[in-house]
């Protein structure tokens, strides 16, 4: 159990602004696979293993697009979408779910998410969608820190792009770590 609030920290100055996608899924193999598919398609990703980690990350850096799973423990993808929509209304949100699109649990979420895709995902379909959203002028300016131009430098160094708290960034030369 966490006894102190999480914060994002980095040992280096973050690179110049580059749009990125925040991926959120508690199923690690799916998260890793989707992240890899997107990176190979030239999309920069940050992978979060839980909505809590994703929210902490958004406090520090603003994604251009968020792609989140629905069914997750503690905070589900719908709640995460509502929170992100309230805090950062310009970020397009995409939901991925194992539910049917007309499932009663999914229907109320249509107003929050720009798109809802069912698992198993069609890789080409989600790539096309995300490329479009990344290019959309409606997307809010991304990759800005919420408190300035440089992320907080605090805590220990990273592990080359993979962290102990489920946040992973494809910018491996600038590792991010979560510390408590």
């Amino acid at each position: 159990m966490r006894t102190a609030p999480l914060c994002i920290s980095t040992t280096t100055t973050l690179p110049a602004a580059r749009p990125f996608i925040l991926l959120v899924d508690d199923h690690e193999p799916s998260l890793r696979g989707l992240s890899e598919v997107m990176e190979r398609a030239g999309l920069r990703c940050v992978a979060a293993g839980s909505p809590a980690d994703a929210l902490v990350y958004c406090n520090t850096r603003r994604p251009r697009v968020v792609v989140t799973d629905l069914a997750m423990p503690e905070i589900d993808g719908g709640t995460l979408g509502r929170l992100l929509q309230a805090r950062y209304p310009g970020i397009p949100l995409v939901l991925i779910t194992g539910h049917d699109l007309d499932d009663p649990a999914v229907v109320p979420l249509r107003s929050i998410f720009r798109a809802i895709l069912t698992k198993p995902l069609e890789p080409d379909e989600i790539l096309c969608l995300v490329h479009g959203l990344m290019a959309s002028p409606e997307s809010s300016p991304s990759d800005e820190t919420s408190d300035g131009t440089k992320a907080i430098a605090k805590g220990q160094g990273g592990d080359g792009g993979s962290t102990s708290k489920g946040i992973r960034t494809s910018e491996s030369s600038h590792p991010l770590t979560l510390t408590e």
Partner: protein
Amino acid sequence: MSDSECNLVRGLAGDLLKITASAEQLSTLYETLGEFNHLVRNRLNSLKLSIYLARQDGPKHLDEYWAELDRRYRTIEGFVERLQTIYRPMSLTPMRLTVGMLFDDLHAKWSKGFESRQVRFMLTSPSDQAVGHFDPIRLGQGLDALAAWRTDNAKANSLVHVEWHVAGEDVVVLWREPEVTCLPLDDAPEGDAPCLALPLLARIITAHGGRLDASLEDGLLLQLRWPLGACAA
């Protein structure tokens, strides 16, 4: 379908056919498999992404094997999708349409499929344009699954005759295959998943307030019947 009719088909498909007739059993199955559903979807998702990535990295001369792997993967994904469609609560998106439009959309595709297997196919429609209130996507999905299953299993030079008409307030579809003497529902090629076309169609027809009956007394006869105004408020 009655129990004896369900027994015309074997294995999982036959068991599911019995369950589609009972809202209570469907509900129990849904509750039992709810968590399993989430688990399976996640695993299929990671498997699908892995296959996609591995194929990108794989040498080109192995394309034939990747295609086979992809085909087998999609068979399993389709099976899970169909199974879940059967046991999940089914919501309908009704539209007011002529019944003929439902079959017009399917006719060309079915003809092409049966022709590729050298099966004689006939569709007989009434001249009048009965208007119904139903979910054309769901009904099309169920009928199409039936046609695909029968396309895969019909023998060359055999006859498939589909006739639909309106009787009273019901749409009636008669699917006849005179040469068929048994329904080998579990005849999926080795390594492939059972078809489940018949329980899927039964589930969709039941959701429309109708029923599916089957007989093998004089060849295969499937009778589908659902109210014209199935989804009318």
